[in-house]
């Protein structure tokens, strides 16, 4: 499309003419001015009986909506056009596929990523490393939830409960008996798995949204118990001064232990990616996919539905338990406020925005949802607002997620090396 044609398409996307497009944008601006009027413009103080009027905000809304609606319509129209053209492989995905299909390129890319990951704490300061650690924690959590939601198709809104159990288990054991990090990491994993089984049993019969609300309720129950069972969990004030992991018995300073924590997290992430990748292509992984696609057909194929579902819950929860232990060791402080429903929602968004069932997608999702808001700190107060807006926008314009999962496709081609794989 030449420049003139592009401009024309942009201005009149989804409309007959410029005039129509202008009218539509104008109407949208007027409508939003009306909708946002009371909340944005008027602020009453019912005690002192004063009113603040913020008329200038109405102007911002009108301008933003008037110009924004052109972009909105253009993006929607482009999405429609794209739908007809291809099955929607984006440029980034195509690039990833090319890299993966060439052996040398693949090793070079892996090498670059590994070098970057190892050099990170040396190059950047403590603050950056800390942000990166929490991003890695979310990647692990996302990969764990990906097993339950992305592969097995069970909508779990209470995933954070397992995370909380791991964190509190380490915090309590460390406080009472001085148990170390390395001992608690596998214990946290086992506790997560057991809790996953316990939750799995009663909800085996539920499906879809009933499952979602029950898991949500379960997550809230755990959080409320943590908050109210003061004698054991110290209530809302939480447990502080949790020991950081020791490096073969040596105590490390703040910088040293943060760097150490970072490498532990990298190790855990590599382990997670390895396991999840192997699980995906295993017998149970295929059973999960079958379960996600169609429960009844899956049963008819002779797959034990109960075992498959329980395995999904237990294995998903395992990673959450481990991530919880790491979280407690990293922040040296846990309280129930870290384990609200929003945390579950954020982890779920990482999975869905990244692309369900895709490991690369989950990593991309975590980077977008965790790192971007961190670097938006300059807009501190607008951070969560933008976060919500990003979630809506990504879903509206890429409902299948950023990087969609691809199964191995066996195609007969003259050159078998170019078959897409993950």
């Amino acid at each position, binding site marked *: 499309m030449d420049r003139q044609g592009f401009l024309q398409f942009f201005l009149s996307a989804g409309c007959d003419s410029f005039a129509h497009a202008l009218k539509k944008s104008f109407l949208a601006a007027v*409508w*939003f001015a009306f*909708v*946002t009027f*009371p*909340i*944005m413009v*008027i*602020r*009453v*103080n*019912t*005690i002192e*009986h004063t*009113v603040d009027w913020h008329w200038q*905000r109405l102007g911002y809304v009108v301008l933003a909506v008037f110009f924004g609606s052109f972009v909105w319509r253009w993006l*929607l129209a482009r999405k429609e056009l794209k739908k007809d053209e291809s099955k929607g492989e984006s440029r980034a995905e195509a690039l990833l596929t090319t890299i993966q299909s060439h052996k040398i390129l693949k090793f070079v890319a892996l090498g670059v990523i590994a070098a970057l990951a190892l050099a990170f704490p040396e190059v950047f300061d403590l603050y950056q490393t800390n942000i990166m650690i929490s991003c890695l924690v979310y990647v692990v959590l996302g990969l764990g939830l990906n097993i339950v939601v992305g592969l097995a198709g069970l*909508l779990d809104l209470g995933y954070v409960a397992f995370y909380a159990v791991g964190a509190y288990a380490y915090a309590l054991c460390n406080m009472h008996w001085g148990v170390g990090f390395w001992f608690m990491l596998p214990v946290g994993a086992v506790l997560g798995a057991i809790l996953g089984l316990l939750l799995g049993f*009663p909800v085996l*019969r*539920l*499906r879809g*949204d*009933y499952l*979602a*609300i*029950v898991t949500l*309720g*379960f997550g*809230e*129950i755990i959080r*409320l*118990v943590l908050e*109210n069972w003061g004698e054991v969990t110290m209530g809302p004030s939480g447990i502080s001064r949790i020991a950081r992991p020791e490096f073969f018995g040596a105590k490390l300073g703040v910088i040293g232990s943060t760097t150490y924590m970072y490498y532990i997290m990298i190790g855990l992430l590599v382990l997670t990616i390895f396991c999840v990748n192997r699980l995906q292509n295993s017998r149970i992984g295929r059973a999960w996919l079958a379960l996600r696609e*169609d*429960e*009844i*057909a899956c049963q008819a194929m002779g797959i034990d539905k109960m075992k498959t579902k329980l395995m999904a819950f237990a294995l998903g929860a395992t990673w959450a338990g481990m991530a919880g232990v790491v979280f407690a060791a990293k922040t040296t402080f846990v309280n129930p406020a870290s384990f609200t*429903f*929003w945390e579950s*929602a954020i982890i*779920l*968004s990482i999975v*869905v*925005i990244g692309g*369900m069932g895709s490991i690369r997608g989950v990593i991309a999702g975590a980077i977008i949802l965790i790192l971007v808001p961190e670097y938006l700190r300059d807009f501190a*107060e*607008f951070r*969560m*607002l933008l*976060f*919500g*807006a*990003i*979630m*809506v926008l990504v*879903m*509206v314009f890429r*409902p*299948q997620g950023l990087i969609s999962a691809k199964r191995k496709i066996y195609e007969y081609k003259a050159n078998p090396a170019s078959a897409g794989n993950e």
Partner: protein
Amino acid sequence: MEYFLELLFGGLTRGSIYALIALGYTMVYGIIELINFAHGEIYMIGAFTGLIVAGLLTMLGFPGIAILAIAMACAVVWAAAYGYTIEKVAYKPLRGAPRLSPLISAIGMSIFLQNYVMLAQTSDFLPFPELIPEFDFMKGMGSMLSSSELAILTVTVAVCVGLTLFIKYTKLGKAMRATAQNRKMAMLVGINVDMVISATFIIGSSLAAMGGVLIASHIGQINYFIGFIAGIKAFTAAVLGGIGSIPGAMLGGLVLGLTEAFATGYVSSDYEDVFAFCLLVLILIFRPSGIMGKEKIQKV
């Protein structure tokens, strides 16, 4: 006995508010099978609009009952506008997308609206004027039933009856039922499905806004976060009764409200929400599709 009655009326009030909000969830779910997570935020926006209008009118010196009526009407209008806009912006472009996409979009919308209200208003708790005056004939009731509780109960009963009649007898109500049953077939017989969906969002949002103003005036304070817990509870109520069923939502709301009231009154007030969720898990284990829900026949 008096304590029992107090708890009973408290539970009924609480339950009817849950039911009012749950109706919006259940109607939307019935038609487009979407958990509208932003519905709790609509309730919150309704309450805020009510507060702003009531605050303005009090300063202008309007009489009490007029303030109540106008504040309620404004809350309904604006909440309906928000519901309509949210549907158009965040859900309509996602028709036909994978099931989880509109859910994430709804969660995003919910976060957006909370922070929008927090930034535009404040994050503090704001005092809400008592809009429902003390009735004279209620004096003898003591602490058992206050006039605002009576008002909430009356409004809920009226709304429920009205809504049931509306769904059953009007043209739009029939169109809604048809769309809920089979969207494609409804389209084939000439029902404007987009219009029906918009209407559903508008009605559901209006009910939530009424609930918002009533409960805010009853409790006496609001902040930007009230939508979350109310939304979760109402959603629990909708699922409890069988999501998609309108009498189910009412029943679910009442069961949930009464359970909470009696459990906090007789057992422990710390674990108020735990009882609600335990009840939900228990009922769903024995009736996986809710109290009034119909078991859907699954086909391959």
